[in-house]
């Protein structure tokens, strides 16, 4: 029972956090609402740079949320809203930057690190397996030695 109460409280507090900066909005369609939510979660607040527009209560974040809402209401697509933001604030506003020369290391770095790690593990295992003097099931002791 205690566990259940604690879990509920924890979930409730989390819900409060994720809805922090979002105003009540009326949308024309569920698609529009989804687009709005995706956009405010994907766009960075320029004032508090480690927060997205949805989380931030900075004045600029409120203004930009209004701007996103207005554009969607006007029938603009998600792409158009993102282009609008990039044209003004640069690619830095995107929490999911496009893959290009400057961001290649960011995108592929983890995969490269994983590959290096795997390589080290493989080499390590191989070397230990082939170390002479340790119990090798295939090693045969010559008859003369007995």
């Amino acid at each position: 029972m205690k566990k259940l109460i604690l879990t509920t409280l924890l979930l409730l507090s989390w819900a409060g956090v994720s809805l922090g900066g979002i105003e009540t909005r009326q949308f024309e369609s569920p698609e529009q609402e989804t687009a709005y939510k995706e956009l405010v979660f994907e766009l960075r607040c320029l004032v508090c740079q480690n927060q997205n527009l949805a989380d931030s209560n900075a004045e600029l974040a409120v203004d930009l949320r209004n701007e996103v809402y207005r554009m969607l209401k006007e029938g603009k697509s998600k792409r158009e809203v993102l282009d609008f933001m990039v044209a003004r604030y640069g690619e830095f506003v995107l929490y999911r930057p496009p893959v290009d020369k400057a961001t290649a290391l960011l995108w592929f770095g983890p995969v490269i690190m994983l590959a290096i790690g795997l390589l080290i593990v493989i080499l390590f295992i191989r070397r230990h397996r082939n170390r002479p003097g340790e119990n090798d099931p295939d090693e045969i002791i010559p008859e003369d030695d007995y």
Partner: protein
Amino acid sequence: MKAKFLIPLLIFLVISGFLGVGLVLDPKEVPSPLVGKPAPALSLPALDNPERIVTTEEFLGKPWMLNVWATWCVSCRAEHRLLVEMAKHTDIPIVGLDYKDDADDAKQWLRQLGDPYAVTAFDEKGRIAIDWGVYGTPETYLIDKEGIIRFKQIGPIDAKVMQEKILPLVKQLQEEAA
């Protein structure tokens, strides 16, 4: 065998290198995509006369400077003195963009601290500032005779920025226009 001992040192040096560079970079300085692009439209009422509409077009043909400020902005106060001096010693028009402010407070500020601006556009809601990619005041833009943004300063102008960046560029832009 000896080289093996050097591996942690090497990793340490590489990490230190990256962190060192990270310390020197200023994350607040987001490179503006607007530099090299035409200045966005302005079209706002003037602070001292709401009937006069300030537009980007009226400055075409000569270089000008746009300075985004607000009375609630602490570092704007610090840079204001330099702008007043600049207005005295150069003839480039400095246009103010009063950002999300109270008109009466703003007028009083200019009376008290001096008015370096050829005209101040009043952006009460901050809508135009979004088009200019403003995300922190003060911000300053230099626009050439063709209406292209050539420089953007994010944060307050200090004496060093004024001497090393703004004044030489103003001179260059004025020579280009001559």
